């Protein structure tokens, strides 16, 4: 019954995506940013769509189950990033509207007058975000597999979900993501409220009882302490994530921001979204309840569904599963738009608008097929790259930040040098010397090297310019 319910939910999300647009479009700007006409409500759900993913649903509960209050690092980084975006929104939106940006690559290419920088940033964006797309698709399969206990059902859901996402994204573009976002957030809130009432009551007699038992039996879960998730890990992970989101280094965040009707809409949402962010606490509480009942060493990502299956009747678990699949499918659609527009605008460069549009659509099919096939047959292949999604993307932060200024104070050379140095450090610390910096987030170390190299390159650049000016005189 749960499988039927889930497949019906997946189909419903697909149908809602199609309803997002009535007529097909052949214009990439209209498809990618919805004609820059979205009002406050649509923008609210689009912005929330980027934040509330499978990680929110399954990951937060899993993080609380395995690390206790260390999971709290994930609560403040988005509101901190919104503070940065609140002040940047007008500048960013105005630049995008005046200069016709659709992607991060467009922005960097224009601000630094460098096609090469636009292309490099786009390639990095695709490489770092493709594993994130796969994560959503495999997350979908995991959800169904956990609930039905049948891996074939998981694969079937992954295929059905991916095909429907591709279909509605091709048809409706960002409007499809917006239409499905309403449904996703609605059902997600219902599911979280049901879980937060039912799970603690069923297993401990209520939320305060859960924490009183934790205090008695596992007091270490109530504090951030030494170990893998210590104070340094907590603060540096929070800062890297806040910088990455606040300075728009994740490529799929660009189309959503560019689609706003005006910057006031963005600012108003950034002011109020931190209240909505508190929803993250709900799966965390479920994760704490799991500490009391789920055996240590169980798969952390599965605890929320395991508890809901034990505490709720089958049809209610079905609703929870549909909500969880929505948190995988809708962000996957947004990520696909981010990837395809980067490829069509900044990597494969064609002059004809029509060809660009078809390259974009071809990329949607190709990227999702790649993520699906790897998700089914080699789920571990892209898993390592996922480690680079945040720490690698955040290396674009200095370039973006300097590009937001009215007059860009540095040339493309120093930005290239800093970016390449930062990425090399991140790759080295992630895959080669994994213990060199202890629990410091490697993205932050890369960023420090990036900024120092950028600064040194600026000094060298100015020295060379002054010397050649003297020679010319």
């Amino acid at each position: 019954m749960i499988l039927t319910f889930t497949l019906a939910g997946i189909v419903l999300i697909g149908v809602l995506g199609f309803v997002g647009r009535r007529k097909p479009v052949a214009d990439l700007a209209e498809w990618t940013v919805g004609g820059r006409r979205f009002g406050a409500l649509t923008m609210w759900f689009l912005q929330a769509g980027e934040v509330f993913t499978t990680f929110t649903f399954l990951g937060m509960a899993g993080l609380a189950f395995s690390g206790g209050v260390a999971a709290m690092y994930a609560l403040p980084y988005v509101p901190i990033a919104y503070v940065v975006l609140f002040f940047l929104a007008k500048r960013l939106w105005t630049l995008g509207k005046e200069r016709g940006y659709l992607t991060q690559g467009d922005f960097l290419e224009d601000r630094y007058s460098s096609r090469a920088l636009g292309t490099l940033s786009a390639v990095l964006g695709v490489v770092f975000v493709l594993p994130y797309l796969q994560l959503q698709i495999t997350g979908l399969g995991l959800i169904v597999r956990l609930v039905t206990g049948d891996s074939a059902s998981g694969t079937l859901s992954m295929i059905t979900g991916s095909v429907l996402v591709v279909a509605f994204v091709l048809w409706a573009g960002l409007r499809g993501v917006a239409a499905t976002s309403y449904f996703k957030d609605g059902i997600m809130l219902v599911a979280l409220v049901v879980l937060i009432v039912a799970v603690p009551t069923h297993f401990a007699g209520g939320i305060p009882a859960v924490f009183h038992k934790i205090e008695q039996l596992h007091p270490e879960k109530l504090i951030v302490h030494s170990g893998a998730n210590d104070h340094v890990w907590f603060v540096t992970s929070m800062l890297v994530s806040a910088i990455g989101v606040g300075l728009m280094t994740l490529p799929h965040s660009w189309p959503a921001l560019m689609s706003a009707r005006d910057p006031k809409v963005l600012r108003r949402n950034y002011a109020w979204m931190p209240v909505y962010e508190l929803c993250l606490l709900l799966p965390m509480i479920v994760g704490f309840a799991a500490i009391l009942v789920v055996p240590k060493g169980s798969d952390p990502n599965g605890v929320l569904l395991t508890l809901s299956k034990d505490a709720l009747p089958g049809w209610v678990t079905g609703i929870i599963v549909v909500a969880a699949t929505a948190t995988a499918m809708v962000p996957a659609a947004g990520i696909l738009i981010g990837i395809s527009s980067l490829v069509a605008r900044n990597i494969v460069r064609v002059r004809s608008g029509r060809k660009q549009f078809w390259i974009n659509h071809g990329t949607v099919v190709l990227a999702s097929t790649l993520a699906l096939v790897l998700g089914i047959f080699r789920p571990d292949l892209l898993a390592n790259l996922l480690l680079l999604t945040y720490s690698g993307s955040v290396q674009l932060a200095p370039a973006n930040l300097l590009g937001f200024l009215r007059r860009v104070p540095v040339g493309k050379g120093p930005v290239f040098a800093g970016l390449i140095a930062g990425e090399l450090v991140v790759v080295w610390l992630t895959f080669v010397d994994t213990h060199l910096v202890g629990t410091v987030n490697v993205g932050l170390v890369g960023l420090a090297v990036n900024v120092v190299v950028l600064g040194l390159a600026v000094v060298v650049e100015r020295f060379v310019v002054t010397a050649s000016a003297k020679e010319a005189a």
Partner: protein
Amino acid sequence: MRSYHWPPLLPVLALVLMPFLPFVNTTGLWLGLPRMMVWGGFWCLMFTPALLLSERLMRGREEER
């Protein structure tokens, strides 16, 4: 930094320093919840009034011009 940048600084600091505050990062509960959770939730909520104040200050500055 302009005057309208100041209001959200306090919540940012309160959240970044959260694990280093001995009265927050400790066992014991507030309102039946872990102290970190209550502290984090409260200061996240404080972003909204802080940013609304920033907006007001920005508008005042634009009108002055």
